[in-house]
């Protein structure tokens, strides 16, 4: 079921406004610690989740608010978790960088670069054996391509013929260092090293992402293989909340803002559509944020539960 651009836009806007709301919350001292926002990268989770099955397992990085929201996590729950409240997600245990929503088949963010990929491989093994057609997707950053665990997982996924999608969100930077200074070749050029199919896509266009991910998913299942997708995008905010971005070349941010997925969608939608969607999402997020601030901090008594589940 293909989403219209207006639908995609609405979803992307939800993510954008949640992230912006969190920036405000941070400035107001409502968030402890730092967060990693996905501003500029919204088209990737939105496009991908529009074609994944709702029960395809999902794993993201610390920059994963967009994936949680695109997978159906409500903004109030997510913002409450980021603010350390007793949220419906992880009750404040996870915070911004490590949250999960198991009921939404979102197995969570991961704060260790690349470390979600081996875990996704395991989920993929479980899906394959269940034989019910689910295919996990794991998203990482471009810089993560140089972690050993990613390498090991791609080779293992290939030789064991495990259907899985590795989404590489190439946002131009790893922290404060431009990607090309760290990685010998683009992510896509590594697919051949594992004999797996690889696709590139415009990560600022949710429809392009959707069609690439749909194709990747089909091939993963049909050929029983791991598939790599590299989505080109740009991080339009700092690496983390306090990042002053002194390392950016002059004019870069401005230039990159031109290909912002929201701006691009707005060009294609009518003024009316945009105005209407904006109005509804703005008030939606405002309400959700207000609701999140009403959620109390978790009770310390519970802090010792669930170290083990049995």
């Amino acid at each position, binding site marked *: 079921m293909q989403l219209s651009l207006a639908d995609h836009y609405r979803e992307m806007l939800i993510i954008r406004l949640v992230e912006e709301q969190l920036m405000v919350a941070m400035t107001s001292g409502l968030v402890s610690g730092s967060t990693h926002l996905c501003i500029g990268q919204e088209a990737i989770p939105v496009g991908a989740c529009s074609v994944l099955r709702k029960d395809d397992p999902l794993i993201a990085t610390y920059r994963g608010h967009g994936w949680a929201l695109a997978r159906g996590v409500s903004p109030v729950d997510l913002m409450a978790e980021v603010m350390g409240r007793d949220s419906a997600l992880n009750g404040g245990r996870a915070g911004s960088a490590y949250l999960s929503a198991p009921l939404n088949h979102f197995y969570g963010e991961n704060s260790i670069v690349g470390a979600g990929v*081996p875990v996704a491989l395991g989920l993929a093994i479980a899906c394959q054996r269940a034989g019910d057609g689910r295919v996990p997707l794991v998203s990482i950053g471009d810089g993560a391509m140089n972690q050993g665990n990613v390498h090991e*997982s791609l080779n293992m996924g290939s030789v*064991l013929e495990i259907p899985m999608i590795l989404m590489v969100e190439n946002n131009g930077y790893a922290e404060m260092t431009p990607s090309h200074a760290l990685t010998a070749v683009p992510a896509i050029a590594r697919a051949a090293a594992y004999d797996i199919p690889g696709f590139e896509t415009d990560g600022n266009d949710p429809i392009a992402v959707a069609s690439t991910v749909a194709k990747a998913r089909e091939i993963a299942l049909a050929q029983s293989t791991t598939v790599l997708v590299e989505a080109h995008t740009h991080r339009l905010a700092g690496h983390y909340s306090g990042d002053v971005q002194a390392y950016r070349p002059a004019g870069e941010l401005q230039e990159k803002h031109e290909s912002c997925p929201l701006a691009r969608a707005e060009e294609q939608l009518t003024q009316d559509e945009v105005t209407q969607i904006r109005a509804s999402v703005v008030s939606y997020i405002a309400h959700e944020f207000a609701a999140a601030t009403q959620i109390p901090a978790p009770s310390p008594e519970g802090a010792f539960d669930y170290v083990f*589940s049995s």
Partner: protein
Amino acid sequence: MSSVADYPELSYIRAVNLALDESLQTHPEMIVFGEDVAIPHGPFGATKGLLAKFGDRVFDTPISESAMLGAALGSAMGGMRPVVEIMYADFLFVAMDQIVNQIANSSYVSRGMLKAPLVIRTQQGHTPGACAQHSQSVEALFAHIPGLRVAVPSTPADVYSILKASIALDDPVMVFESRKLYPTKGQVAVGQDDSGIGIARTIQTGDDLTVVTWGTARALVEESVASGAGAGASIEVIDLRWISPWDSSRVLESVSRTGRLLVVHEANTNAGFGAEVVSTVAEELGSRLRASRRIGLLGTPVPSSPALAQAVLPTVARVTSAITELLKD
């Protein structure tokens, strides 16, 4: 219930094999994987015959421990019950992130919504000629990590029951087997479940000294005592079997009677789990702990030559002289 006399004598490695076999029958969601575990039957034979019997539920992987352990976590969260073999405990270090930062956290951070019913089987310790990179005993490191359960079985019966219980458990368990003990034999209560997670075993009772041990070191203690160490005194010997959780109440009860405590393990003494045992007792019993000592590796990497290894690893002689000295206090 069959009488004890009927139970078969099995080697330690065969007891491992049997526990895996029976568990694969009991738990349809269980899978077994690792390097050389399927077609080649396992580097030490732990998985012998399982491929033939259980087909693709038993499979070989590339030499990629991070991917293997991540695959264990992911498949466990996805509803399976993986048992993964890490060939030597020394190799855990190439993949420790998946244990410490991923596996150990999953239940806690998700408030029990993500479960990780998985077992990491590995074997550890020194055997003659093994190099420093294939000789370590590393259980203490994992006891320090919240969210992991850690067992160090020392007999065929224990490895059998501990493995079965660990596999049935919905939590991640690390089972440190012993390469040195693989050929040793003992009666195994086949079919009997002994799901005592964290329960130690009292090998012999006594009132003058408590000796706590586990893993390969247990044999040193038994040999020392059998050869008359502390003759005339009455010595209690406890095999912890698990170090996380560990049976502190049993040890406390014992030392509250004996007032003396010796802990013997093969791992490095410094910051080893023996320190946890002694300090827990010291905290609880105060000056009623009259004397204590730890015996372990003496602070060097393990050298390969037997002439050298003997000098730095725990020995029966070191156990015996510690027993003698402690009994003087």
